[in-house]
Structure formats: C-alpha cells, structure tokens
C-alpha cells in the first residue's frame, strides 16, 4: 500500500519522460534516414524544384514583411534606448548587426516554421491518412526519399537565402524609419551600416538559416509521416510540427550563438 503510494507518482513522471525520450529517438532515426538518403540515388529533382518554389519563393513575402517591420521597430527602440546616453549614431550599425546575427534568422525561421512546417505536415499527414504513402511503397518508391528528402534539402538550401534577403529588407526598414522618422542623413546612415557590419555577422545568420530550414522541414515531414488517423490526427500532427520546429529553432539558436560567440 505504502510502496504503491510512493511508486505511483514516480510512474506518473517516468511514463511521459520515457515517451518523450522514445519520441526524440524516433526523430533522430528519421533524421539519420533522411540524411542517408540524400547521398543515395534515385534523386527526385522535379520534387526538389517544386519544394524550392513552395518553401523558398512563396515564403519570400511573409519573411520580407516580417523583416521590414522588425527593422523599423528595431530602429525606433534602439534610438530610444541609445538617446539616453547620447549614442544615437549607433542606431544604423546595431540595427544591421541585430538583424543579420539574430532577428533575421530567428524571426525568418519562425515565420517559415509557421508557414512551411504546417503545410508539409498537413500535406504528408493527409497523404498518410488517404493511403497515398502506402501507394508509394507499392509503387516501389521510398516515401522518405520521395517526400522528405526533396523538402528537407530545399528548406536547407532556401532558408539561408531567405535570411539573407530578410536581412537586407530589415536593414532597409531601419533605414526608412531612420531617415523619415528619426532625421538621419540617408548617406550617413548607409555608410554607418556598411562600415560596422562584418561578413561574419551575415555569415553566422545565414548558417543559422540553413540549420533552421533543415529543422523546419524535418519536423513537418516527421509529424506528417507519423500522423494519426482522420482530421484530428492530421490537425495534431500539424500543431506538433509547428510547435516543435519553433522550439527547436529557439533552442538551436542559443547553441549556435554560443558556438559563434566562443569561436
């Protein structure tokens, strides 16, 4: 009786912990499978090109708008803070560095997670529920190779480009606000930006973009392929894909920042 009283709460903790660890294990095995298929033929170039369009090109408006408004807001915030110790001149360089190193990749990654992880999980989940994935197998086509590899590769390649474009648009947002709202001289703002922004700032953000893109597509594919039955199953898979992609982006962002900081 007393032993049961003691073990019951421990079991209640242990069960979700074990389930969580098993889930992480399955995700890692899935990632290894995707990675290993990257280097083995056949390669589905048509599916890859389609994924580049849907993941990269069509995400451009949402990433661009996010960067534009973030750059503008950042300029206002930094101006407000820096004016307290008469350091307004630092606004252009801090906007540029902040966008390139942190806000560009993280906010861009989160927007792609919302847009892409959800659509991949819903599409593949629906394919699973309607037996299209079983049909692929009976037609001698490996679903990981045909569905996951093109999407993961496309996201890994295109999200860094989105981040670079987002950085530029974000800096432009800061410049627009700086010149029109904060009375900066346009040429001086741009010179300040160029003088203080280093290649390493941009490179570290772009590298983060590649990692975030990989994680976003991986989560979409993983939860889609492991979707439960029916509309509820697909809905749950979609939600889990977005949540886990977002958390992984934020977690990996810290780890990558530590790595770049220490280097």
């Amino acid at each position: 009786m007393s032993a049961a009283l003691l073990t019951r709460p421990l079991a209640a903790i242990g069960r979700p912990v074990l389930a969580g660890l098993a889930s992480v294990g399955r995700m890692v095995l899935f990632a290894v499978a995707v990675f290993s298929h990257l280097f083995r033929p056949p390669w589905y170039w048509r599916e890859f090109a389609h994924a580049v369009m849907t993941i990269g090109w069509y995400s451009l408006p949402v990433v661009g708008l996010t960067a534009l408004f973030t750059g503008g807001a950042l300029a206002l915030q930094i101006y407000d803070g820096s004016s307290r110790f008469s350091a307004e001149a630092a606004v252009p360089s801090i906007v540029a560095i902040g966008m390139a190193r942190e806000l560009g990749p993280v906010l861009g990654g989160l927007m792609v997670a919302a847009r892409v992880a959800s659509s991949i999980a819903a599409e593949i989940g629906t394919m699973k529920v309607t037996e299209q994935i079983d049909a692929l197998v009976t037609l001698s086509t490996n679903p990981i190779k045909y569905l996951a590899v093109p999407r993961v590769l496309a996201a890994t390649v295109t999200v860094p480009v989105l981040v670079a474009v987002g950085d530029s648009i974000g800096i432009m947002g800061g410049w627009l606000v700086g010149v029109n709202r904060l009375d900066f001289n346009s040429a001086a703002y741009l010179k300040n930006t160029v003088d203080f922004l280093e290649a390493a700032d941009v490179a570290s953000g772009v590298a983060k973009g590649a990692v975030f893109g990989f994680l976003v597509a991986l989560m979409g594919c993983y939860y889609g392929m492991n979707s439960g039955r029916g509309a509820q199953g697909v809905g749950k898979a979609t939600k889990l894909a977005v949540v886990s992609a977002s958390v992984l982006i934020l977690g990996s962002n810290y780890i990558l920042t530590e790595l770049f900081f220490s280097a």
Partner: protein
Amino acid sequence: MIQLDNVHKAFGEKRVLRGVTLEVPRGESMVIIGGSGTGKSVALKCILGLVRPDSGTITLDGQPVDKGDRDDFLARFGMLFQGAALFDSLTVWQNVAFRLLRGNQKLPKTQAREIAIEKLRRVGLTPETADLYPAELSGGMQKRVGLARAIAADPEVIFFDEPTTGLDPIMAGVINELIREIVVEMGATAMTITHDMTSVRAIADDVAMLHDGVIKWTGTVVEIDSCADPYVQQFIHGRAEGPIEAVR
C-alpha cells in the same frame, strides 16, 4: 503462389491476426470476406510488407516476402486501394504511369504517357481524362484510375482492397466486371478483400472467410451457398443472429 502460414499480428493489446494460414494458387482469384475490423486489410498489408507480422511466414512462389530485393518484389504487384489513393499533386496520366516514370521500369515520358492512356482506355476512361487532376474526378472514375495504375506495369499479382466501397450499385457492378475481365486477360493472381457479396460472386474463383484473426472457411465460390459453416452462412445472408457477434 502466395502462402501465409500461421501469421500473427498485434497492435498493442489488440491481436488482429491470430494465426492466418492461407494459400492463393497462381492465376486464381481469391476473395477474402469478413466483417469490418477483422484484419483483412492487415493481412494484405503484411504480404506487401507495409505491415511487419509478429510471427509466421509469408512466401511468394516459395520465397519469403521479406528476403531479396524489395523493388523487384514490389514490381510484381499492383494494388487498387479502397479510396484509390491517387496522388493529388499529379495528373491522371502521371498517376497511372507513376511506376513507368521512375525506378527500374523507367520509360521515356512519351512512351509512359501512351501506355497510361491505353490503360485508361482499358478501364473505360477517355484520353481527355489523362490531363485532369484526381480532385476533378468522381469516385467511380477515381477507382478506374486506381485500377489503371494497378495494372500499368502488367503485374503478376493484383490486390484489390474493398474495390466497390462507396460506389453506387451500377458503378460497383462496372468495377467488378472490369476487375474480372482484366484479371482473366492478364492471367494475374488476384487477391481481393471485401464485404460486398455481389463483388465476391463477380470476382472470385476461391473465397476465404476471415473472422477473429483466423481463416474460418475456404472453398470455391460455387461452394459458398451450400457450405454448412455457420460464420459463412451468417455473413453471406447478412443475419444479425449467429456466431458472429454484432454490436447493436
């Protein structure tokens, strides 16, 4: 010949197959009947390797299905899925020619399209449907496209999973006739799972009754009406009373 020997499969606590033993001779059309949730689809998926059995052996022409080259093995099969399982993002002809556009059996695009249109014609669809998307087709047309895809690469074995479910009686009759004609003219081994007795009588050479995870009865389609098995009798006459418990 397909042979299942004492095949078991459980999902968690639920034991779906409890020792299925069945033989499907080459060139014959075997229909497995049984109520919903009795494990018919699982048995089919075990043969194809979509589901791994917990124990027992499954062989095709004496070779275990889980040994040898998987692509070569699957190339011998065609399958018509219950909901047709057409790929939404591809046109009708690309669905039909899916196997012919990639992998070991890859053909030039124009040749694959010609074969797809020929197969579509065989299942009663005009070439104009070739460039439509699956979402633009009715349920009956989708089933026909699924059938055309199943036979596109001239397989030795064709599986039909509930081929008439969701169709009106006339369209169901058309699909049944098509299946019968195609199986006979291709000389393929066919395995169908259904609970539609009209399908059974139209398609089957042999019938097996699956209930509670085991095969309760096997015989020819001619014998089914005269057999004394109470499970079969209850099932084919659709009686609520009998050894098969019906949830009310």
